[in-house]
């Protein structure tokens, strides 16, 4: 077909159609390609299979098949070799609300529903007024929630924070930490990269101080040492102190995550923005931070997840979060059954896992949404 005469190659006529290559995406092909593609791979597959076969059936037996699903403590006592779910069903209200008075729990419910509704709505990209929902959730919602939960206004009776507990307390601490640590972390990161030496010094010292001490020590300091510096007649809520400690601690980590993102933004982006006449804060808000934060979404969510789990440490200053309240319920003599502690801890682990995994999924969703083609 190719004529090769006067030194040039000319393709005369059309090439015939060839059959498409055989599809290689069926289940068998998938197995072959991914699990048995080489000798090493085959051995690894078989070993993994053996481990799964060894571990999964007993776990399923304990958790589901042989587990006690109903009947209260007696049933569990009769069958102590498997999970005791009645322990959870009997106590779930306490796990959720702590010692929040029964008659006032509707207030917690409203806050929870609004929170879940807000998160649900925000997951839809195309929703009208999405920006406003986001803004409402970020600023007025935490304030209104505080008054809803604490009371003292609109004729709501006051519920002291010492009576807050369980999952509700976990959420209060974690969400306040999250909402406070991100903006604070951004400001600290910008300060650490500032051209003003004083600013840089203050931010660096702040970050290194909070990063250098364990959270347990922060919480102890907040609960024991901090009041020593206050005049004796000033009282400062224990929970508030813990929340501030957690938030400052997390903000130091957040600052370093954000700083990593800022460093990844090429100089040309700043120059492009400056040449257009954008002043510093607008340049940061419109050009630099959106790109920097997008890069470090995995790191930010990582910090959120860490913070969420670290809230369990408030146990040591006497606040009963979900883990704390489950742990103290385990000691109830009515439930002194061998399987109850395991069941309690598995339950706590499941709740935390579901929350953290949800955060991970949500962040992946956002990352995909923000992807705008190749970088330049």
């Amino acid at each position, binding site marked *: 077909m190719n004529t090769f005469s006067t030194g040039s190659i000319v393709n005369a006529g059309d090439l015939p159609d060839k059959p498409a290559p055989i599809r290689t995406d069926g289940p068998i092909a998938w197995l072959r390609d991914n699990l048995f593609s080489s000798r090493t791979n085959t051995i690894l597959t078989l070993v993994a299979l053996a481990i799964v076969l060894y571990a999964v059936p007993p776990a399923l037996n304990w958790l589901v098949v042989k587990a006690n699903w109903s009947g209260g403590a007696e049933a569990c006592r009769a069958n102590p070799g498997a999970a005791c779910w009645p322990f959870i069903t009997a106590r779930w209200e306490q796990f959720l609300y702590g010692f929040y008075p029964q008659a006032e729990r509707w207030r917690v419910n409203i806050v929870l529903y609004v929170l879940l509704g807000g998160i649900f709505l925000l997951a839809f990209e195309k929703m009208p007024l999405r920006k406003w929902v986001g803004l409402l959730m970020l600023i007025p919602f935490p304030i209104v929630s505080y008054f809803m939960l604490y009371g003292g206004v609109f004729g709501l009776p006051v519920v002291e924070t010492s009576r807050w507990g369980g999952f509700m307390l976990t959420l209060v601490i974690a969400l306040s930490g999250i909402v406070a640590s991100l903006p604070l972390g951004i400001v600290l990161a910008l300060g650490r990269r500032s051209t003003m030496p004083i600013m840089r010094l203050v931010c660096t010292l702040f970050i290194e101080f909070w990063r250098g001490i364990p959270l347990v020590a922060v919480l102890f300091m907040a609960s024991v040492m901090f009041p020593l510096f206050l005049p004796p007649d000033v009282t400062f809520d224990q929970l508030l102190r813990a929340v501030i400690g957690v938030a400052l601690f997390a903000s130091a980590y957040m600052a370093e995550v954000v700083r990593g993102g800022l460093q990844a933004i090429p100089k*040309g*982006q700043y*120059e*492009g*923005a*400056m*040449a*257009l*006449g*954008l*002043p510093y804060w*607008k340049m940061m808000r*419109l*050009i630099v931070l*959106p*790109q920097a934060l*997008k890069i470090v979404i995995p790191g930010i969510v990582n910090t959120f997840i860490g913070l969420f789990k670290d809230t369990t440490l408030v146990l040591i200053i006497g606040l009963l979060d979900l883990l704390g309240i489950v742990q103290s319920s385990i000691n109830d003599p009515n439930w002194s059954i061998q399987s109850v502690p395991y069941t309690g801890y598995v339950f706590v682990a499941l709740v935390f896992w579901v929350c953290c995994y949800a955060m991970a999924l949500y962040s992946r969703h956002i990352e995909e949404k*923000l992807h*705008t*083609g*190749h*970088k*330049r």
Partner: protein
Amino acid sequence: MSEVASTSGAPSLAVSDEVVIRIADMDKWYGQFHVLKSIDLEVRRGERIVICGPSGSGKSTLIRCINRLEEHQSGSINVDGIELTDDLKNIDAIRREVGMVFQHFNLFPHLTVLENCTLAPIWVKKMPKNEAEEVAMKYLERVRIPEQASKFPGQLSGGQQQRVAIARSLCMNPKIMLFDEPTSALDPEMIKEVLDVMIELAREGMTMICVTHEMGFAKTVANRVIFMDAGQIIEQNEPGAFFDNPQSERTQLFLSQILAH
């Protein structure tokens, strides 16, 4: 280097006597390194100046001093009657009058082409959004890519990106445009589409300072070519005389090198 369709008589475009940029005895150092040495330069309204010179001679630094992307240490720079000092107000005012196009485009990758163009009018000039979009579409049509308005910069070719960058600058309605090697990151077949836009801009009377080695462009539109070496302005002349009859030895050497291939 790509030859630009040369239309005779283009450089005779009207240039007013009014000086818009006045740089007097300006020096700049990077640490101990003296990059710009007593630069004197006057640019009149409507003038189109091409700056060339070997790599590292300070061309970029010079034009970046004009909109304060770099700070000069002595001497003075005056842009359209505004003295360039540490005063942020003056810097902002100058940046509003001076547009800049970079070698690597520096488009904002997280914004669409249209948003790239409307950002500064909306946030710096406080223009209403729909008016800014109208202006942006007008300039995107001028650079012949209105159909790409809703794409992201990462989805465009280099030549298209550079034309967006030009449109983005024009949306601020600048009096002066600075170009820093706008075509040197582009493949040869895209250079022309960018140069064509620049030539059109020159024909409309825009005051332009271009750092470029596109000598065809210089011959077509420039009314002055400046040769820099080692931080100094060595020679400047109108393009005909500059290319045909360079005075300094360094200019001759430079021209023989870049015209050789």
